[in-house]
């Protein structure tokens, strides 16, 4: 399936030599010309919205045109990698921060913060997501934001001696309530994921050294947290399939009714109910445990663009308060512009479960923090996941698992 990443990576390598720099004509500060916009898996659902945004832009700036190139969800990193390596990045690109970081390091993106005080327009958390250790500047306009909520299975709570109106609010409460559920219903599970780097951040454990050159989270405190999960696993609070579960594993288990808890964005409820309509009315929603996570999507500008002024203007346009608010009204995501705070839609709870989720998530955003440092890329998360699975299963001590993970991750970090 995903052998593809190799292909893309390889493509880059080989094309390094071929990377002749056809320097863009930067003469035009005028907003004119034809640019391309690459989004990530938004069509066909939001085609109309995107076309409207584009039409607004071209009407404001005659002489411009914007070609929409929406890319499928799967294989996006491979696609972007291939584009970056072959000098074919689109002018305006929707990039999550962890994709933007390596491109920024290779000078492939424009510093959009230069000569522009972004903090007048966007929330600080959004801007910070596109500032990286080791490179100066801001490498993307924040676009839409999201966070995680907790979703609970009401029926299983009721059947197993718990109250879905007072679900766990912290990780420690999760452990106690999981014990209650286990005692009443030996075949049910409350917990549905093993710890990852975000849990260490939540617990206040330092992830990297101050200079960002080393991982240092293999502390006794972190080991104690993993020990807690290991003991919970041994007592049967978590289903064995968590040892293999991937990023969306817990929501799938939740939809199947195999576990009574999952995390998910403000759109989560809609997804669960679309897949399993019998969950309607059976899902309680509450704020994220401990510290809510902040997820940011942004729009970056290619430094190789032929019409940099146009590309920048369009990136500002699509992320302006007006356009972002409209987007947020279509789907449960949240604008990153300061002006959007005055849009009462986002904070209002219309009484429906989805409306409640939206209002809760919007309220959460002001406390939300990025819980996965961008240094910890997907491969490192996988390495850590493997070691933690080993520890939770009880095959090695938690400390050793963390030491091994940190050693391997440091090796990867040193190579970057």
């Amino acid at each position: 399936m995903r052998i593809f990443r190799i292909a893309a990576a390889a493509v880059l390598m080989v094309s390094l030599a071929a990377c002749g720099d056809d320097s863009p004509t930067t003469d035009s500060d005028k907003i004119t010309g034809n640019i391309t916009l690459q989004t990530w898996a938004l069509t066909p659902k939001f085609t109309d919205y995107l076309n409207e945004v584009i039409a607004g832009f071209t009407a404001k700036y005659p002489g411009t045109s914007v070609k929409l190139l929406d890319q499928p969800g799967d294989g996006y990193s491979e696609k972007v990698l291939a584009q970056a390596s072959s000098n074919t990045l689109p002018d305006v690109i929707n990039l999550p921060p962890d994709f933007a970081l390596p491109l920024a390091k290779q000078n492939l993106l424009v510093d959009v913060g230069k000569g522009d005080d972004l903090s007048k327009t966007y929330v600080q958390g959004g801007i910070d997501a596109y500032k990286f250790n080791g490179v100066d500047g801001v490498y993307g306009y924040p676009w839409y934001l999201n966070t995680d909520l907790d979703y609970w299975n009401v029926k299983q709570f009721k059947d197993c001696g718990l109250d879905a109106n007072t679900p766990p609010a912290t990780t420690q409460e999760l452990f106690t309530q999981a014990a209650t559920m286990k005692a009443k219903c030996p075949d049910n599970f409350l917990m549905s994921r093993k710890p990852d780097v975000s849990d260490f951040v939540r617990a206040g454990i330092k992830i990297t050294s101050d200079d960002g050159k080393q991982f240092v989270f293999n502390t006794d405190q972190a080991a104690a947290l993993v020990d807690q999960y290991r003991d919970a696993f041994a007592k049967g609070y978590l289903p064995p399939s968590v040892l293999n579960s991937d990023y969306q594993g817990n929501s799938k288990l939740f939809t199947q009714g195999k576990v009574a808890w999952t995390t998910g964005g403000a759109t989560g409820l809609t997804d669960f109910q679309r897949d399993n309509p019998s969950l309607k009315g059976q899902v309680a929603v509450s704020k994220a445990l401990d510290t809510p996570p902040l997820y940011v999507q942004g729009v970056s500008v290619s430094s190789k663009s032929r019409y940099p002024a146009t590309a920048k203007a369009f990136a500002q346009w699509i992320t302006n308060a007006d356009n972002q608010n409209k987007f947020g009204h279509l789907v449960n995501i949240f604008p990153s512009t300061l002006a959007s705070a005055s849009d009462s839609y986002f904070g209002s709870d219309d009484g429906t479960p989805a409306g409640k989720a939206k209002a809760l998530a919007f309220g959460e955003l002001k406390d939300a923090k990025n819980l996965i440092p961008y240094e910890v890329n997907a491969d490192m998360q996988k390495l850590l996941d493997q070691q933690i699975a080993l520890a939770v299963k009880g095959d090695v001590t938690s400390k050793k698992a963390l030491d091994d993970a940190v050693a391997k991750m440091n090796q990867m970090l040193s190579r970057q």
Partner: protein
Amino acid sequence: MKALRYFLLAFVLVITVGPFLWELSTSLKGAGEDIYTQTPSFVPHQPTLNNYAKVADAIPVWRYIGNSLVVAALTVGGNILFATTAGYAIARLRFRGRSVVLGLFLSTLVLPGEVTIVSQYVTVRDFGLADTLVGVALPGMVAALNVLLMYNAFRALPQEIDEAAIVDGATVPQRLLRVSLPAVRGTLAVVAIFAFIQAWDDFLWPLIVLTSPEKYTLTVGLQYLSGTFTQDQRLIAAGTMIAFIPIAILFSALQRYFFRGVEEGGVKG
């Protein structure tokens, strides 16, 4: 005896078609039905063809199918032509370097495929074929596996059939086309199926080569059904079924050729 055969057939059937049936039933399930149940449910309780209509509304399915067919046709054509000629030459003609050529094809088989895509993209781009369907088809138009399959089939033919033709003064192309080729139709059918499926199912390669959404092949285009906030498993299942139909048609059409072996090729041993 016949009953035993059918029993065995049914047994293997049960083992093989599970995932397919689940996909089929998911694609037929109404919006009020659960998809992910603790144990799989294979019977749609509110059967509907709506999901198929919705797929057609959401994405230009016909255009994607057309693009995929172009790529598949080029791939099948290339493999049939070049694998046949090369396979025939190594199996039936004597020439210096024959074993070296055979060894080369064999060793190409074990070159790790994960890295051969590597510079293929660069090559295709250098040919000026980035973002074209020909560029997607090009690297797959000859597969070592297919050359070896044809070689193996030609080699299995009895030596006498060539000798008789040579006596009649037949040239190499005549011998290939009139004598040997009809006898290996079964393997040709297999090569066609392998080539078709390889082209039809490929995902990453067309994704990398193509940039314009209107040129996407079906596997890439179907990915739009799993959008960022819009995954409906019923639609995804319907899309998968749509992608499956052409393969099923091709397979049913070609599988009867598997059994037209030597005796029906007019060269009864």
